[in-house]
């Protein structure tokens, strides 16, 4: 038949771990956003795998909603990045300490 779901879940775990590592170590806000996308994709892959394994189409429906929310998140996030860049001329997360007490 097809490849075992455990392989898909393992790949999803690795992808999520790489994305989380990227968010933690990179300082460019745009690349941090891309790493968040990696983590969302890992979750999507796990959802599709569970939908196939548990014979429930609800997993695929949820992936659909995750895609929509990811699109909205990127749009608003990049708007914030542009607005910050107007002010600071930098996309470095370490420069954003305006609200520090």
């Amino acid at each position, binding site marked *: 038949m097809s*490849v075992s*779901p455990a392989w898909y879940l393992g790949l999803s775990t690795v*992808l999520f771990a790489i994305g989380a590592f990227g968010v933690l170590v990179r300082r460019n806000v745009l690349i941090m956003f891309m790493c968040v996308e990696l983590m969302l994709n890992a979750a999507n892959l796990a959802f599709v795998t569970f939908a196939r394994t548990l014979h429930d189409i609800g997993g695929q429906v949820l992936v659909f909603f995750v895609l929509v929310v990811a699109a909205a998140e990127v749009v608003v996030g990049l708007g914030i990045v*542009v607005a910050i860049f107007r002010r600071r001329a930098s996309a470095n997360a370490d420069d954003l300490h305006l609200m520090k007490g």
Partner: protein
Amino acid sequence: MTATLLSLAATSGHPTIPDVGVFAVAAAMVIAGAVGVVVARNPVHSALMLVLTLFGVAVLFVLQQANFLAAVQVIVYAGAIVVLFLFVIMFLGVDREEDVRADPLRGQRPLAVALVLFGTTGLLLLGQVSKWTTGQPSVAGTDSGAPNVNLLGKSLYTTYLFPFEATSALLIIAVVGAVVLARRPPAATAADDADETPVDDVVIDRTPGAPEAPAEPVAPDGPATAADADDAEVDA
């Protein structure tokens, strides 16, 4: 949980050679792209590596009979989101190389590795000991394992109709929010555009009848366009 999945897989027969090959190639694409996103110094390269990962995930979707989601993945993610990323990178002009070897916070990377490893192993161990499936029958519809865009659409427009409509409201709100965020402040006029020196934290008085205010800080962007000049005259 993993044991359950393994037993399920065992009953579903042995994987065929083409499936294994496709999975291996797609998984290699996904991992290579993800590593590339994290280690690339140039943000443009990161975005292109992201495309590689997204394509790999789309192939894995096809391999699991989620054809509609694979198409949406390529159209929305690789087609729209990555293009938006590239647009913003080039618009802001941050597509220069960045030294990723500099480590401003000492010990941050080992800590990040430890945190990620701890988290993922904890998750896997939790999956071994706990049972996360309730055994309830599906409310969305039974996935027969065959390509079934009909079932997905029916579930989306009946069981999940309200969330579906709520996402449309979410998208409208996101679009309006992005326009409001990225818009130039209304006080910025041609006088500011003419003075390109970025001055921080200058408060200007914009009340009618006030004397000509000093230049407000504006990002170092292009020269004033004709439309801006027209706006300024109308404002004045």
